[in-house]
């Protein structure tokens, strides 16, 4: 074989850098949607690669539900410091206080759906014309048809049946006043690719991804961490378990799995033998078969 070929990770990396540079060139005020999860961390790392030796030219936008893991917030602030980037925070609590949204009620209440309003408000008030996300097409079936450059109308909505065709590497980011785009540089990565890349590049990720002792409660087949927001049901009890998280969302709904994987090597091994998709432990997707599609149409990440 000729020496002039890239392995799959290098090719995915190069593609993502290309997408990030297109975003920078085609939009006036793009931001990275930063959740503190591994996918947005990888996107941020790729942005460093794409613009080296310059600083990353994007602000990081975080939609803060108020239901965070404290570790996530600390990680976010440390990273911002290291990059010298700007941080924009959209607060769900503020949206609630302003009466823009109402808190869900009942046992399974979450602030997940509320984020949509806060996100769209933050996009509008900061005049963001492109929000870069860490969404991957393998995550969920509604995401399988996402474009790299995904158009949103002036209500922030996605119309899956009326997407712009995307051919070769020619991305069309043209938009009218008030509309915006979402860009997904790691569309073609799988969960496994992300982990292999984190390992290869030795990218810093929050400690929550590594197995650690934690107080939690068994709920819907996963371990929900104890927090100030947790309301115990009569038959539930808090136990201490060695767990880790495969994705990071709100502390109220992100379930951990029992695991001994406390190094990147062990995580990669564990993920490669795992037979559950990663979002399986998030109760927001379990609500119905089309939960993700419905939220995405409204403007979700």
């Amino acid at each position: 074989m000729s020496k002039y070929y890239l392995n799959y990770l290098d090719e995915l990396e190069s593609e993502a850098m290309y997408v990030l540079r297109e975003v920078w060139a085609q939009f006036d005020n793009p931001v990275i949607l930063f959740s503190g999860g591994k996918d947005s961390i990888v996107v941020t790392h790729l942005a460093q690669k794409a613009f080296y030796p310059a600083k990353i030219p994007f602000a990081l936008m975080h939609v803060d539900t108020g239901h965070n893991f404290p570790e996530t917030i600390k990680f976010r602030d440390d990273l911002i410091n290291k990059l010298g980037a700007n941080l924009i925070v959209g607060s769900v609590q503020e949206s609630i206080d302003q009466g823009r949204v109402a808190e869900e009620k009942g046992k399974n209440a979450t602030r997940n759906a509320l984020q949509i309003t806060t996100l769209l408000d933050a996009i509008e008030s900061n005049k963001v014309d492109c929000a870069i996300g860490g969404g991957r097409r393998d995550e969920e079936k509604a995401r399988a048809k996402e474009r790299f450059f995904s158009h949103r109308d002036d209500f922030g909505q996605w119309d899956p049946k009326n997407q712009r065709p995307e051919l070769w590497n020619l991305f069309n980011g043209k938009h009218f006043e008030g509309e915006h785009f979402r860009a997904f540089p790691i569309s073609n990565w799988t969960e496994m690719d992300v982990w292999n890349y984190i390992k290869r590049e030795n990218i810093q990720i929050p400690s929550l991804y590594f197995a650690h002792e934690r107080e939690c409660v068994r709920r819907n087949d996963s371990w929900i961490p104890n927090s100030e927001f947790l309301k115990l049901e009569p038959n539930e009890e808090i136990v201490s378990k060695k767990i880790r998280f495969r994705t990071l969302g709100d502390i109220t709904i992100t379930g951990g799995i029992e695991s001994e994987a406390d190094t990147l090597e062990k995580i990669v091994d564990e993920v490669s033998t795992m037979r559950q998709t990663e979002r399986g432990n998030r109760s927001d997707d379990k609500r119905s078969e089309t939960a993700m599609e419905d939220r995405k149409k409204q403007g979700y990440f």
Partner: protein
Amino acid sequence: MIDNNQLLRFTTAGSVDDGKSTLIGRLLYDSKSIFEDQLEAVENTSKQKGHAGVDLALFTDGLRDEREQGITIDVAYRYFTTPKRKFIIADTPGHIQYTRNMVTGASTANAAIILVDARHGVIEQTRRHAFIASLLQIPHIIVCINKMDLVDYSEQAYNKVLEQFEEFSSKLLVKDIRFIPISALLGDNVVNRSQNMDWYQGAPLLHTLENMHISSDINKVDARFPVQTVIRPQSEKFIDYRGYAGRIASGVFRKGDEITVMPSGFTSKIKTIDTLDGALEEAFAPMSVTLTLEDDIDISRGDMIVRSNNKPEPTQDIEVMLCWLNDAPAKPRAKYTIQHTSNEQKAMIKEVVYKIDINTLDRNSEDKALDMNAIAKVKIRTTKPLMVDDYRENRTTGSIILVDDATNETVAAGMIV
């Protein structure tokens, strides 16, 4: 997964009911790419629908509307990995009204799988799929003759389809065509070698996909570097730094190479090839890098850096095989924005030379309407020169899209001839 494994992108095309969804489901299932919870969901749905076993086709189901109508209407991407390669499937619908989706899926593919029902043989749609694959210059075509279980795994049935296919494919420009008799439903020759077709000497489908030689499919001769953006750190450490960021479209660049910037024609030498992980001695397609030059010349997005001894043709008049992608047909002598690599200009469709009947491949010089899914040879004039190569030589510098300024929609995709 081994570190030097490559990525292979392929599309699948077939008529409704040829077994495309079943085949993809089978590939995902037999290569153990399906997770427990996905499997559970599909098992539940299969039961509800009254299927005996797992309906493999359900693994590739997409958006809700499609589930309700039971058809695929957009390009959906699927992923699976084997110990040898990572695969990306662009799953596209087969019906004529979705030609644009097929073209989209084909534009980035290294290989195309075309499904043929062994009982029906080559039909109009098969010809269209093969034509699109050749038009988009997909380097490898694999014709899967499916449902062999329904024709008693007969060699004659297989040979008949093969002959029918070769009869017209000889007119197409395809470098590599292979034929594999399979049963997507039962798994023959998909991942595992069939026990029912001793007469077939070739490899099963997955083995073929894993071992196909793809590194030579990228043009490594013509060095082309479309500039995406200029990097100016303006930090103390890099005070005068001016780098040109881009993804190498084709060829190889080395430190010290004599280069020409197009369209200005200024020449210089490559001073460094920079990456976050350190400077490189050489870089090749499709790497994303940043180049710095020995001389201070004015370069911006849309310019192209090329090796001085091998330059593309700067031209304002191009001939293109155009595929119309929009509901609204082209207006006569209408103006559009044309995107070619990172270069963007205004353009006008001057003339439709002929339209292709994509079922018979006949040229039609009477009906020249550019409406949805039409494929036509057209002449385009641009306001400023584009640095183009023939699409057959270079898929990146040979391709364009047209954007309608009134709607901002991507209305057409073209291959420069």
